[in-house]
């Protein structure tokens, strides 16, 4: 019956739309997190240099490094903790060492907590912007140059920047 047909078509369309919506949630989630910075993701591209330094207050930044246990590396920050003024440029390094006899290509995924402070965490240069190849046994210093945006709300006094190191997706696929 045609009354049934048209209703069925509409309902099937609704199903298809909701299926698509499920997948649309993926980019939407990224955009939403990007705008609000709520899941601690930092920008993947270099920020502009700071235009002023706020000498009036200090923020402490801690550094953490972890890695996927399936990747045979040692990975640690050189500096555990820093105190700095918002707007002040800093350079810290992370040390990574390939403990295997295979070349490894790594990606590091950064995260800032509290998440809402992530968008005030400005990186001018970061090893996480690119994949990092490691020869067998290679030890490497990986720098991050960053500052904390002077616009950072007053309530944030302690920030944590953490990295988790993985084998790059490309290398995983080719293995």
């Amino acid at each position, binding site marked *: 019956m045609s009354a*049934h047909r048209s*209703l069925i078509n509409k*309902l099937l369309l609704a199903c298809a739309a909701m*299926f698509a919506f*499920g*997948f649309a949630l993926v980019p939407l989630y990224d955009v939403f*997190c990007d705008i609000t910075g709520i899941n601690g993701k930092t920008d993947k591209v270099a920020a502009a240099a700071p235009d002023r330094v706020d000498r009036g207050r200090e923020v402490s930044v801690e550094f953490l490094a972890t890695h996927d246990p399936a990747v045979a590396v040692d990975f640690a920050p050189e500096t555990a903790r820093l105190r700095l003024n918002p707007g002040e440029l800093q350079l810290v390094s992370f040390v990574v060492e390939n403990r295997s006899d295979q070349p490894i290509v790594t990606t590091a995924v950064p995260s800032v907590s509290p998440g809402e402070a992530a968008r005030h965490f400005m990186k001018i240069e970061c090893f996480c912007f690119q994949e990092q190849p490691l020869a067998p046994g290679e030890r490497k210093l990986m720098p991050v140059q960053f500052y904390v945006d002077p616009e950072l709300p007053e309530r944030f006094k302690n920030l944590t920047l953490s990295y988790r190191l993985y084998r790059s*997706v490309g290398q995983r696929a080719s293995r």
Partner: protein
Amino acid sequence: MSTQVTGTLDAHGAAGRPRDHDHKPRGLARWLFSTNHKDIGTLYLLFSLAMLFTGGSLAMVIRAELFQPGLQFVDPHFFNQMTTVHGLVMVFGAVMPAFVGLANWMIPLMIGAPDMALPRINNWSFWILPCAFAILLSTLFMEGGAPAAGWTFYAPLSTKYSGDSTAFFVLAVHLMGVSSIMGAINVIVTIWNMRAPGMGWMKLPLFVWTWLITAFLLIAVMPVLAGVVTMVLTDKYFGTSFFDAAGGGDPVMFQHIFWFFGHPEVYIMILPAFGIVSTIIPTFARKPLFGYESMVIATASIAFLSFIVWGHHMFTTGMPVVAELFFMYATMLIAVPTGVKVFNWVATMWRGSMTFEVPMMFSLAFIVLFTIGGFSGLMLAIIPADFQYQDTYFVVAHFHYVLVTGAVFGIIAAVYYWIPKWTGVMYDERLAQVHFWCSLVSVNMLFFPMHFVGLAGMPRRIPDYALQFADLNAFMSIGGFLFGLSQLLFLWGVVRCMRGIGDKATDRVWEGAQGLEWEVPSPAPYHTFDTPPVVK
């Protein structure tokens, strides 16, 4: 609506064909190829009963292991398979198909339609289900075992750390989803297009209304579930990184997508039960339902709100405070329409001349115990409190009160209420009363102490626990075994009716019963309402 549907038939509205025209195919072919809504309803209900006992056996394994602290019978990995498959079987195999079965049987009878709108789709949507569950349950016997990531299959548990049963699991969920969507389309088209003349929207029985709204929820969220299991599949086997941070994905996103489906899903499992209770209470209180319109509006607003509260499952994932507050207030808002419903049920009984046959007893237990589950839900909705309760037995207590003493009690009430119409014989009231009281006592022994051990910090989904929880766990396990055994009484009662043992049921069955389904003979003939009745 000031009067309930009286559903009187006019002069030419024959209620059913005479018995001798009651053709139906015989044997296995009747069931395999049936397009008759009553046959398919029966199939759904029997399938659901089988799944209730299957899922129940898995729960017995869980309770046996938890009877004492330490590891007794099963290893932790197998324990995780038990909790996972128990949850999946109960949600998708027992509760949801039972409601679809009731919809199949009752919606055409209640709206005066000769059958469901799409009979062949109906046949398919049922027969897909046994296939889906055969696939899911077969993983229990495979190397590596069944899925063990919980019925919520959070990534990366279901992606990185899962076994090869994941592929079977994803296929099974897809099939269940297809079945539910076809069922939902069928329900909507039936209600939309096939109401008897005079059956206006505001005359629809509440069971029909709640199912209509449930069907829309199914259409809206089952495709999202299909999407999220597909992402799990491709993450695991095809190198995508939806939930894998290494490739730019985010495991927390899994929870957002899953619970966008998951919270409406819990209402899919309760709204039809609201409809059932709203049908049974007026019958045995011998008064029309109090506040019909407000019931419809409350159901619709619960359905709407269910889309914007999913974050209450994720308070501890590190959401920003504003988002947590939003989800907290939105969640608490749901208590308002839910409260309206409870108020209306109680008001319906107020000064009614009540009798307490078993469908009424289960409905009364539903009201009290579901409300307890609602209250623990409200406690869980309070962010700081949830930080303590999250992932403890308190959550288990909450959702078993709303699902077992809510949804399952509603289904049992419905079966006792309508089984005389289905089989033509009355169930054994004494046996059923014993079933009720055994279930009532044991279900509370089983689930009530879970509130306490949960508040004291016993985590869920763990096969072992600290010594101080030992006594209560032994007590709960005993309650669990008793509850399991009590359901054998239910099985016995149902089998008796199916074999035609018992007093012959009258057409109206219940003195206070209202609605078109009671206008047809008992048992309901194979074909009913070939000529539509006219509803005044």
